[in-house]
């Protein structure tokens, strides 16, 4: 018997029901007002049936087709990151009681979330952030709780957009690990499903699915291979990129980038691996208690490099250099992994079309 199963489109709702009865809130890519992003999913009809996307540097466009597939688009606008490492949240609060003593209260909020449709690059993004928030000397209790209560259903790519470059990093649009279930969509039919964890197996058992046929399994693999072959961006081998970026810290290209870069921070905010954050206090009017918040920060923010009285990266040139060299070089020293997954969001969502792959190639030439 094949170790692949088959979930017909008509039975997606059964899977959602099974997840819900296990206490999960289901989240999936959904179409809303010109874009496809993660949102709560109550029923399969809410999936982005027939929607396709086109992405280019600084360009994103969604079109509706008559195709009968739910995952005919490439990537949702956001990654899974905001579900684990929130854009802004309260981490603790402190109040002064009548005797003047401070009482601290930690805040750890989490819920059981099943993500229906995670692209392989975003799975790798989670793997990289696990290294930052869980498998590090510093453990983030909120991130850990959310990861423990997460059910990941990977969705292998059957298409690439023109900013995709996972293959240039030596990866592929195929989910090889880090999921509970992995699926590949076959048009007009349904999904070839693979089990990736005990949790995934238990869920699948309740659905009593038929095995995928050899033809279906083969068709799924061919579709993933076609998506890989559709990628056109190339980079030197990653080890070479890592070495050359650090050997070219005064390359004239950094000035060229700085003349075009808005330093708006969009690239870092859409990145599935960026983890920088800042903390603030939000006191009440009376000044008797305060919420201590944590929110995403960016190395493009001028305050980010302000350290005991001085701003170290005053010029955009140094902020961009910090971002690129961290993501594509010093990340490995810090976490022993790559810092980029090749999703291409930083290229798509750069308002002035700066393409990270082109910039790396210009510097590593």
């Amino acid at each position, binding site marked *: 018997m094949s170790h692949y199963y088959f979930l017909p489109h008509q039975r997606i709702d059964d899977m959602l029901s099974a997840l819900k009865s296990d206490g999960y809130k289901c989240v999936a890519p959904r179409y809303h007002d010109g874009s496809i992003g993660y949102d709560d999913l109550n029923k399969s009809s809410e999936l982005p049936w027939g929607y396709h996307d086109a992405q280019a540097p600084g360009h994103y466009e969604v079109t509706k087709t008559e195709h009968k597939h739910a995952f005919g688009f490439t990537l949702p*606008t956001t990654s899974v990151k905001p579900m684990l490492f929130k854009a802004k949240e309260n981490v603790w609060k402190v109040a002064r009681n009548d005797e003047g003593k401070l009482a601290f209260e930690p805040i750890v909020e989490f819920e059981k979330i099943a993500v229906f449709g995670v692209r392989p690059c975003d799975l790798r993004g989670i793997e990289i952030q696990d290294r930052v928030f869980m498998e590090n000397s510093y453990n983030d209790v909120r991130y850990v709780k959310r990861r423990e209560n997460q059910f990941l259903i990977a969705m292998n790519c059957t298409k690439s957009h023109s900013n995709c470059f996972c293959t240039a990093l030596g990866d592929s649009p195929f989910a090889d690990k880090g999921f509970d279930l992995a699926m590949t969509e076959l048009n007009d039919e349904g999904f070839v499903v693979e089990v990736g964890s005990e949790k995934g197996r238990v869920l699948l058992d309740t659905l009593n699915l038929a095995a995928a046929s050899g033809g279906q399994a083969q068709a799924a693999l061919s579709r993933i291979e076609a998506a890989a072959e559709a990628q056109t961006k190339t980079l030197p081998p990653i080890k070479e990129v890592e070495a050359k970026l650090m050997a070219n810290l005064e390359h004239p290209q950094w000035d060229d980038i700085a003349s*075009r870069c808005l330093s708006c*921070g969009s690239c870092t*905010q859409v990145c599935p691996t960026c983890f920088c954050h800042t903390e603030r206090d939000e006191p009440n*009017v*009376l*000044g008797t208690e305060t919420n201590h918040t944590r929110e995403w920060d960016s190395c493009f923010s001028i305050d980010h490099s302000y350290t005991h009285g001085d701003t170290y990266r005053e010029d955009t040139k140094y902020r961009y250099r910090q971002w690129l060299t961290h993501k594509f070089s010093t990340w490995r020293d810090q976490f022993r992994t790559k810092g980029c997954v090749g999703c291409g969001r930083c290229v798509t969502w*750069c308002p002035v079309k700066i393409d990270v792959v082109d910039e790396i190639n210009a510097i590593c030439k």
Partner: protein
Amino acid sequence: MSAHDKLLGLAARPKVAVHKFSSCDGCQLAFINDAVSLLELSTLVDIVHFAEAGPLDEFAEVDLAIIEGSVNTKHDIHRLEMIREKAKYVLCIGACAITGGIQALRNYQDEKGLLSWQEGVYPQRTDVIIAEDLPTAKPISAYVPVDFEIPGCPITSIQLVSAVRAILFGVEPEKNVDSVCVSCKHAGITCVMVAKGEPCLGPVTANGCEALCPSLGRGCYGCFGASKYANIKALKQQFRDMGLTEQQITHKFQFINSQDAGLQGE
């Protein structure tokens, strides 16, 4: 002098005045819209002048003068100097007080042009602009020293209450330095420039409005003034690439905060 040193002399129960110059009153409403915070604040400070809310004592000695609006008349200058003289600290609120606001567009007009604007706005001839008055609308800081500023058109209740709270703590109010793009991404708002082709000032504008316009599918109007290190040249080039004419680009930048030094550039 650092803000901390400067605020060392703040009274335990400070006296506060709220003043208005040429403006729409929208920034003062940031106080009134959040009535609960205003009532709580009134247990910590004495509000001695705030025409919009009731108390009137325009030239009382105060610790903190909160000023809205721009300076447009000779009478404004005189009144402003009196207020400054009686106030230990001045906090300017909103685009009008900080950059001159939308009325500073008159600074680009000669007398004839101004007259034609007047005719376009008012149904009959009025003496709303008297010949002896100033030919410009300018920010408060053009005439008197200013201690603190909070930008916006209008500012938000959170900004205003947080700023006053910070001053009571003896620290400088926090400045918004990041771009609106950061707020959009935090809120999960899809970029209107990339996905909808809307020219947007968000990449060069300070955040603080929670990306109000992009959340409604529109480009940012730049109400909160320039973000720190705004690359105006690069954004103007992007607008040209999107097909905007030079005049359309000029109109984009010459709007709420036309006098903002951070929004100038080729």
